[in-house]
């Protein structure tokens, strides 16, 4: 999942962005509204987390620009303004969620995850394809009841393949969702991750392959070829 995070206070931005990355999100952090808008116009994001009071371009104005561009990326407003009218104004202007500082990091991460699920047909946190089961909240993966240990990045890539099960997911989509400004679509980072996931979920080849390569197109996750 790729998240745009716009916050002007550097220590907070740095800390939260790191926590999101450690939780498996690809994070682009911007320090003001104009930088946030630039990133938003040039990349695809699953969720945008915006501080309200930003230099140059405040969070509400940025969100209006996002909505004007007919992009329905879920937006979470993050602000120190906790008055009822502020929250109402934020939600009325198009935000999907609103969090008042100070917040708990775990709650922020859960909310971002919940918002990111809205873009998929199955918004549940437990995904199943055949005997493969992924719990995105508990961060657990089981194949035929056997627990599989994946890294945060592997889990994030598997989640999007599970959510789009049966359809081809291109390398650029995976790249955009999980790698911050890598700009290297031809690199083999994604292949390495896919290979590692394949190996782990096949329980060392004891179970049939579920992730299949479509040459020139991308990858598809399905029970049988």
């Amino acid at each position, binding site marked *: 999942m790729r998240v745009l995070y716009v916050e002007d206070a550097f220590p907070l931005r740095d800390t939260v962005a790191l926590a999101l990355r450690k939780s498996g999100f690809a994070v682009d952090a911007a320090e003001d509204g104009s930088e946030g808008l630039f990133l938003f116009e040039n990349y695809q994001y699953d969720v945008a987390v915006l501080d309200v*009071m930003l230099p140059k371009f405040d969070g509400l104005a940025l969100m209006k620009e996002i909505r004007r561009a007919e992009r329905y990326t879920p937006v979470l407003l993050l602000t120190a303004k906790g008055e009822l009218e502020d929250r109402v104004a934020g939600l009325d202007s198009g935000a999907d969620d609103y969090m008042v500082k100070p917040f708990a990091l775990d709650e922020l991460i859960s909310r971002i995850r919940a918002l990111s699920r809205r873009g998929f047909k199955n918004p549940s946190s437990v995904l199943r394809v055949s005997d493969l089961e992924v719990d995105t909240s508990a961060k657990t993966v089981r194949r035929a009841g056997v627990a599989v240990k994946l890294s945060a990045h592997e889990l994030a890539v598997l989640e999007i393949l599970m959510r789009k099960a049966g359809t081809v997911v291109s390398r650029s989509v995976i790249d955009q969702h999980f790698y911050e400004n890598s700009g290297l679509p031809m690199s083999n980072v994604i292949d390495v991750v896919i290979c590692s996931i394949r190996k782990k979920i096949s329980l060392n080849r004891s179970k049939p392959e579920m992730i299949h390569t479509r040459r020139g197109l991308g990858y598809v996750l399905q029970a049988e070829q």
Partner: protein
Amino acid sequence: MKSIESHIVRRLLFGQGILWTIAAFSVWYSQRERLYSEFDNNQKFVSAALRFHIRNSTLEGEVRNRWPRFLTGDEGWHFQSWDEEQNVQVKSEGLGEAEFSYADFERAWSNKDKTAEYVKFNLKGPDGEPLRGVATVARSFRNGQFRRSSSRARDVLVTRSRRELDANLLWLAVFVFGTGVGASLATAKLVKHAVRQGLFSLRQMSEKAQAIDVSNLDVRFEESDLPIELQPISRRLNDLLRRIESGFIRERRFSSDLAHEIRTPITGLKSAAELLLKWPEETTLERHEQILEMANQMEGIIESLLMLASWESGTSPGSRNERIEVGEVVKQCWENESALAAKRNLEYSCSLSDSLEIDADSNLFRLIVANLISNAVSYADENSVVRVANTDGLHPVLTISNSIRQFDESEIANLTKRFWRADKSRSDSIHCGLGLSIVEACATRMGWNLKIDYETNDSVLTVSIGPVQAGD
């Protein structure tokens, strides 16, 4: 606490009750007197006539012809006369064996004006009938003593039943009382209605005032709709509401700004702690520096607020005035900001006289200068000049001016408000919007005056500080 309405109604009804009682009694009493007078006049005439006939020994024939009721005693008609020895001389046949007591007549006469020719009094008939008696008095008061009018004069008493008169008077009393009660009830209702109508505006005002709370302090009383007696009150209330509302807005803005200033570093600290607890491998020197920076930011805000609070409450001990070299203090404060000034390519121009010295609280003066120079260095346009001058002898003591193009002149009044910031995003962690509030508080404590001007044409903001002068 009683309501004004019930208080006024009760008072009015009490007063009206007294007036109605007096009026009713007056009516009844005047009617009683009139009826008694008519009643007595008739007997007076008969009594005088009887005396005449007794004196002329023509009584018997006259009684039979003119007053046959004395023969039967109908309706209590009787007469009786006494001689000089107070013995009964003659009496009507209707009395039979019975006779009236001379003592009753004498008692009535002695209670009256002794010069009166007639005595009127109530007495009982032989059969217990209530009677009204009128007697001619055969005495006159001359030279300080009573004398019989003439040797042949007699005291003659004529009586008549007053049963009908008493019944009429009772009926009159009942009528007057009934009318009074009815009128009182009607008046009470009218009074209550009138008072209610009269107090309608007051009640409306009270209901409106009761409905006012913190959520609707913008409510105002419409003065033109109110009676003139209430207009000064409503004007005063509107004025108070305006002040309370602006106070609430100020407090709310202050709380909101303070919350914002505090919440961001708190969030940073909390997030850093959570991050390091969850992923201890991320503990780095840089992370610790960030935590320290956020803690320092919070400390700065809290220290500034506590400083302001202690000055305002008067709990901060003031230091004594001492001789201060103004130029030296300014130079030291500029040096503290020189790194930022160099980064922003600011030029420093100081035209203070080296010999300029003042007597003031050195701590407060240093705080003022430090804040003003820090603000100038932080907010002046890059590549511009910060000028420090003493323009007019000792008044103002100090003038600091700098160019600032991105400034709205209408914001001058907000500059000394707590947490007001030119940067609406409040991104700058060095300043928190308390600098000029502190300068103003210091100046007030020193008995000085802070003046801020903005020259729109040159985009120059000038802050002057010095002792309060006449005309400031």
